[in-house]
């Protein structure tokens, strides 16, 4: 039973902090994605948990054991790499057996366990093949078997799907998810692909510049982002600079009025907002379009500049009277509006989020 507890972790290269006093608790058996663009520190955190990087401050615990000073090879981890990192001169069997041999597992047991592991990932017929003779998806399955066969305390994956094409990615993703649930092994998973993170996990950490920007369930993060960064990173978002009538302190969750150009709209603050400048965030599917004539609903007038039919949805890009562009995604049954036609963009007050940054 292994949770991962990261406490005030700091990693610096040449004076610059890549991770700054990061704390994080991953529950036993949890599947935990670290999500963020490249260079945000998520891989550094993973490699520090692995032990490849020594932190300059802070601790890492696996359950009750402090592993901060324990070298990688004694941490009992399973690691899956982006480029698979299969040993090219060894057969699939020898690759999977590698960690067991290092642990001096007796030959008979080793054989059973390797075959079990290969079966689990659906690669049982491939034991004698060379990694060269496998496809990308098959290689990653073997790499997964190699990491799992040693029954590690935690499983760490560094962008395991990003070298696969989109169809395979979904397949391997599902295989990883099923296996993880079946084995209940604590898993940390680095990805820059939000769909991967949303699909696989109960809880997500979004990284920004060496710190966790926001952590929560996928729907929390999607519905109540606490910064425009998160809103923009997870899903599509219309982000508009707006003005509040005064710089009074607003609590989170408060209903506030704000002005966008010369129109006053209402939204809900997600974080405390205390300045006159703020941001309004609305998902494209929250917005709707009305005819310019109907003025009863709170909205702002604009002009359709692009119209895209996407099968189940129809997407309009509208240039608001303030000059800003917003995207509006409606069910395909909604009225199709031609480019250039004047419209009114309706902002629903419950789904218009007001953020400080």
């Amino acid at each position, binding site marked *: 039973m292994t949770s991962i507890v990261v406490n005030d972790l700091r*990693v*610096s*290269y*040449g004076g610059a902090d*890549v991770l700054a006093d990061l704390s994080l608790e991953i529950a036993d058996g949890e599947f935990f994605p670290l999500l963020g663009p490249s260079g945000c520190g998520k*891989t*550094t955190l993973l*490699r520090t948990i*692995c*032990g*490849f*990087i*020594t932190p300059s401050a802070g601790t890492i615990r696996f359950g009750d054991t402090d592993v901060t000073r324990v*070298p*990688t*090879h*004694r941490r*009992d*981890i*399973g*690691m899956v*790499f*982006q*480029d698979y*990192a*299969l*040993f*090219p*001169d060894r057969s699939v069997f020898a690759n999977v057996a*590698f*960690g067991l041999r*290092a*642990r001096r597992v007796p030959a008979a047991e080793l054989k059973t366990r390797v075959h079990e592991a290969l079966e689990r990932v659906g690669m049982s017929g491939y034991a004698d093949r060379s990694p060269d003779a496998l496809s990308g998806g098959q290689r990653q399955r073997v*790499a997964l078997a*190699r*990491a799992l066969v*040693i029954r590690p305390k935690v499983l*760490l994956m560094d962008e395991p799907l990003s070298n696969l094409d989109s169809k395979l990615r979904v397949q391997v993703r599902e295989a990883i998810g099923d296996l993880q649930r079946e084995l209940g092994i604590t898993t940390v998973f680095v990805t820059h692909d939000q769909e991967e993170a949303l699909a696989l996990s109960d809880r997500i950490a979004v990284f920004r510049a060496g710190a966790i920007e926001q952590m929560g369930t996928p729907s929390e993060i999607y519905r109540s982002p606490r910064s425009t960064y998160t809103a923009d990173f997870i899903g599509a978002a219309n982000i508009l600079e707006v003005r509040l009538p005064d710089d009074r302190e607003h609590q989170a969750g408060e209903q506030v009025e704000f002005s966008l150009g010369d129109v006053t709209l209402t939204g809900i603050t997600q974080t405390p907002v205390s300045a006159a400048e703020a941001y309004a965030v609305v998902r494209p599917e929250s917005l709707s379009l009305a005819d310019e004539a109907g003025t009863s609903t709170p909205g702002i007038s604009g002009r359709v500049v692009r119209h895209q039919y996407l099968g189940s949805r129809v997407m309009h890009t509208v240039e608001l009277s303030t000059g800003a562009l917003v995207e509006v995604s409606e069910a395909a049954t909604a009225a199709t509006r031609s480019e250039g036609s004047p419209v009114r963009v309706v902002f629903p007050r419950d789904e218009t989020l007001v953020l400080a940054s």
Partner: protein
Amino acid sequence: MSAQSTLGTAGPARRAGNRSPWPWVIITMVAVVLAVTFVLTPILNILIRSLTSGEGLGGWVRFVEEPKYLNALGNSLLLSALVALIATVIGVFLAYFASRYRFPGKWLFTVLPLSALIIPELIVAQAWLMLLGNNGVLTRWLKDVGIELPSVYGWPGMLLVMPLVTYPYVYLGTLAALRNFDSQLEEAATSLGASPLAARLKVTIPTILPAVLSTSILVFSLTLGNFTTATIIGKQLDLLAPLTYTAFLAEMGGDPAMQSTLATLSIAIIALVLLLQRFTVDRRRYEMVQGRSWAPGRLRGASGAVMAVLAALVLLATVLPLGLVVVMAFTKSSGPVLKWGEFSLDTFRQVLTGDPQPILNTLAFGLTACAIGVVISVVVSTIIVKKRNPLAPLLDYLVMFPQALSGTVLGIGIVMTFAGGIWQLGGTAIIIVIVLVVRRLPHGVRSASGILHSIPDSIEDAAVSLGVPPMKSYLKVVLPLMVPGIAAAAILTWVTIVGELSASLVVYSAGQETLSIKVFRLIFTGLNGQAAVYGLILCALAIVPIVIATRVFKVRLFD
């Protein structure tokens, strides 16, 4: 010998803060100390002696006053430029021909130019002398028919032989660039409205030119430091490298003023050339995203015939020396006189029973130097590529220094440093091994680094994550993956060590003649029959391992 250092090609930046296991830090420190001792000290010694020995300012005053020296400098620069030009023309032509056309016997174009790199230069020079020298076969035959050939010694011979020895560097470099060239670039240019000719001039040539130029520069610096051909065929022509060696002989045991002055001059010129290359040509090298080369076309018409004849002539001239040496080795000889047309094994028997020592010396020194060189190359390149630490860049620079040294200069530096003083290695076999190892160091490190770059870091990380300690992971997982590459590098090192002359000639003492030294001395005493036998054995020592490695063990030597 090329100017690229392995610097700046380290692994991704995110490895920077990784654990740097102690064993590697200690190994790095040892490596730096060794590099300072065996690479930096000899160079510094030369530079210092050139200023402090002799009557004020070393030999610099004499250098300016005696026309012989300024003359040699001018000759060397002019010769190197001309040879680079001719070699580039031949090499580019051959590469273009081989990559653009289909024709029977094309495999010869992959094998024969390489043979010019394998056959020791010494043998090539000797063979051309036997053919075109004052007493040469062709010279006499033509004289009998009434045609008087101009003397091959000096400029004509140098301009004939040096390009034939050096063009394969240009050929291989250009061929690689042409193979990597993405022909879609030309198509893109024509689709944008450029005529096919304009596309070639404005797109193809500029992208390939840097690769070609850097091989031309390589040929320039090889020619500038060339001792072997310059001594055998240049003869009375004053050139830098032979003059440096003469100064070394004249000052033996005395004040090393002139030798260190001339050596410093040659270091300065080559260093300048390498720097220029680094800041001009290398900056303009391009990565091709994908290489879809042209499909070779059929050779036809009068121009096709002319090209085919020219290409065949070059290849013929390339292998001619080897053929001639084989014939000479089995030709009956008495003293310096070769009895053409009469074959016998007598000379062979004489050599093998009379003085087989050079063969044994070559094997002993060569194998030792090769083994040491391989180990050092693997360790140093591992530090530079995989286990970077603050000392790694320094080490990288140090091991690349010998690039700026010709064999003669390196030999002089090593003798100055290790023959006397606290080392007292003069006259020992160790000093020969040192010279051979240091001379090949940049090549060895570069090829080992190339192999290491192709092995992803994640392989070693994977082994560590599976529970194997870091050092053991390296030895168990990374090293085995390097073996094929190391084998190839070791064989190429062996080939060049076997044929090495200019540096070992400076450091050797009586009883330690290697095959190349023996051949060199026999050529000068006129015993060409014996020289050919030793030369043939020398060629065999170079060629046989290559044949075995590529045929039996399927080692890929030239990629």
